[in-house]
C-alpha cells in the first residue's frame, strides 16, 4: 500500500486551514488537492463503493466509469426467464448516484496505466487517479467451451449477464412446444452466483410444470456438489418429480463441447439435443482487470482482504465478482458488502491512516418456486490474508423446514432485492 505522500497530506491540511473565502479564490489548486478516486464498473460493487466513499468523505472526487446508462440486475433475472416478472423490474438508472455527487462517465474503460495512474476511456478522456477501483464483474470465457462463441450464444443463450440474453432465453422457452427438452449446462467453480444455475433450473421447471407439463429439464453439471444442494434437491423432489434431472460430474454431466447448428450439448458419454439449450459457460473477471494487469493465471484478481487492493499493482482495488475473495461467493450482496469495506479503507488511506480489520456478511436467497425461498448466509473476516468464514456462523437453513418457512423466505428474498437495489441505485 502507498499512502498519500507527506507533502500531499501537508498540502491538504493547509488547504483545509485556508477557510471558505480562500477556498473560492484558490479553486483550481483546491480542486487538484482533492483526492481522486476512479471507479470502473456500475454494478452492485462499483456503485456501492462510489456512493459509500462520497458519503464517508465528500471532499474525495469520485468518478464512476460505466458503459451503459441503464443497469440490468442479475439477481432475480431468473424470474424474468421463467415469465414471473419483467426485465424492467431489473433495470435501474444512475440518477441517484449522480445526485450524491459522483461524477458519471458513460464510456468504456479501455486501458489502465498503473505507473502514471491513469485510465483511458473510449470517448478519448484520460482520467487520473490516486486510487482506482475496478469492479467489472465477469466476462464469458469464449475460449472455455469448444463450439461456444458469441455467435453460438445467439442460439444457445447463456443469460448470465442480464439483458437481451435473458429475454432471448425466455422467448425460446415461450415458443417451445409442450414435451420439449430443456438442457442447462452448469460450469465448474468459480463462477458468478453459485446457486444461480439451480435457481434458474427450479424456476424454469416451475414454468414447465404450470405451462408445459410434458416437458423435461436436465442440468448437465461440471461439478459433483453445488450451493444449497440439499435444499434444492429436497425441493425438486417435492415440487418437480420426474421433470427436473440433475446429472453430476461423476455421472457424466460435464459438457465438453456444444454444436449450435443442432442445439446439441456433448458430454463424454452422451449427446443431448435440446429444444432449448442454456449454456452457462466458464467465466473470468471482466476485461479491464486483465488490461490493468491485476489478474493472475486463473483469470481472477488476488486482493488484500482488508483494503481489496490488488496484490499485483498498488493503488488499484478490485471488488465483487472479479476478485478471488476466499470463502466469499460471487454474489451481489458480497459485492455490496465488499464495496462498503473498501470505501471505508479508501477513506482512511486517503487521509494517510491505516485501514481497520473488517468483517463482512453475505446473504443470498434463491427461489425454487415463487412462494418457496431458501438461503445461504455467512460471516467472514481475514485470516492470514484470506477471507475466511467465521466458525459456527452462517450456513443454509434446516432441510426439513415447513412450507410456511419457505414462503416466509420467499418474502424475505423479495425484500432482499428491494433493499440491495435501493442501497445501490435508490
Amino acid at each position, binding site marked *: 500500500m502507498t499512502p498519500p505522500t507527506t507533502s500531499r497530506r501537508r498540502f491538504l491540511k493547509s488547504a483545509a486551514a485556508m477557510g471558505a473565502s480562500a477556498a473560492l479564490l484558490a479553486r483550481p489548486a483546491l480542486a487538484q488537492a482533492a483526492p481522486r478516486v476512479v471507479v470502473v464498473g456500475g454494478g452492485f460493487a462499483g456503485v456501492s463503493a462510489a456512493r459509500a466513499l462520497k*458519503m464517508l468523505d*465528500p471532499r474525495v472526487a469520485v468518478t464512476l466509469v460505466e458503459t451503459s446508462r441503464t443497469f440490468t440486475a442479475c439477481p432475480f433475472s431468473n424470474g424474468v426467464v421463467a415469465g414471473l416478472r419483467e426485465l424492467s423490474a431489473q433495470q435501474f438508472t444512475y440518477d441517484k448516484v449522480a445526485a450524491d455527487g459522483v461524477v458519471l462517465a458513460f464510456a468504456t474503460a479501455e486501458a489502465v496505466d498503473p505507473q502514471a495512474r491513469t485510465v483511458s476511456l473510449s470517448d478519448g478522456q484520460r482520467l487520473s487517479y490516486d486510487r482506482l477501483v475496478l469492479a467489472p464483474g465477469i466476462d464469458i470465457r469464449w475460449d472455455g467451451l469448444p463450439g461456444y462463441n458469441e455467435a453460438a450464444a445467439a442460439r444457445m443463450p447463456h443469460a448470465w449477464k442480464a439483458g437481451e440474453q435473458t429475454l432471448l432465453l425466455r422467448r425460446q422457452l415461450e415458443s417451445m412446444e409442450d414435451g420439449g427438452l430443456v438442457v442447462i449446462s452448469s460450469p465448474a467453480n468459480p463462477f458468478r452466483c453459485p446457486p444461480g444455475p439451480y435457481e434458474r433450473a427450479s424456476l424454469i421447471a416451475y414454468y414447465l410444470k404450470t405451462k408445459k407439463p410434458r416437458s423435461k429439464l436436465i442440468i448437465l453439471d461440471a461439478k459433483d456438489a453445488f450451493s444449497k444442494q440439499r435444499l434444492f434437491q429436497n425441493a425438486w423432489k417435492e415440487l418437480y418429480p420426474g421433470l427436473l434431472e440433475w446429472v453430476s460430474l461423476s455421472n457424466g454431466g460435464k459438457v465438453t463441447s456444444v454444436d449450435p447448428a443442432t442445439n446439441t450439448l456433448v458430454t463424454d458419454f452422451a449427446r443431448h439435443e435440446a429444444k432449448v439449450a442454456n449454456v452457462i459457460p466458464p467465466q473470468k473477471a471482466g476485461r479491464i482487470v486483465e488490461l490493468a494487469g491485476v489478474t493472475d493465471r486463473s483469470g481472477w484478481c488476488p486482493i488484500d482482504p482488508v483494503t481489496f487492493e490488488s496484490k499485483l499493482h498498488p493503488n488499484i482495488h478490485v471488488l465483487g465478482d472479479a476478485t478471488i475473495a476466499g470463502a466469499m461467493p460471487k454474489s451481489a450482496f458480497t459485492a455490496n458488502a465488499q464495496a*462498503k469495506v473498501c470505501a471505508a479503507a479508501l477513506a482512511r488511506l486517503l487521509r494517510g491512516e491505516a485501514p481497520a*480489520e473488517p468483517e463482512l456478511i453475505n446473504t443470498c436467497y434463491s427461489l425454487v418456486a415463487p412462494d418457496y425461498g431458501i438461503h445461504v448466509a455467512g460471516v467472514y473476516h481475514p485470516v492470514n490474508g484470506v477471507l475466511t468464514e467465521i466458525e*459456527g456462523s452462517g450456513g443454509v437453513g434446516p432441510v426439513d423446514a415447513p412450507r410456511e418457512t419457505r414462503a416466509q423466505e420467499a418474502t424475505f428474498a423479495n425484500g432482499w432485492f428491494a433493499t440491495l437495489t435501493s*442501497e445501490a441505485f435508490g
Partner: protein
Amino acid sequence: MKTKCVLAAAVLVGAAVPLAAAAAEAPPGASSCSGCHPARAGVETAVPRLTGRSASELVAQMQAFRSGQRPATVMNQIAKGFSEAEIQAIAAWYAEQH
C-alpha cells in the same frame, strides 16, 4: 436522509468546516447489515431498519438470535459470527445513525 442533509450542509459551508470524517465510520461488520436492513425509509421489505433503534434493544435482539431464544431463518446464523463486544459496537453505531 438526515445524515445526507448534514453532509450537504458541510459541503456548502466549504473548507471552513473541518474536512475530517464527515460520517462516522462503521465498526467491523456494521456496514454489511444495510444489504438487508434498509438504510433508506420506504423500502418494501419485511426486514426492519436498524437506524435510530436503541443500542440496548439491538444488543438484546442479537443475543436472543445468537442463543436461539428468538427463532429466525438467517439472523441466528449471522449473529453467531459476532462477539459480544462486536455486537455492542455495531448496536451503538446504529443507535447514532438516522
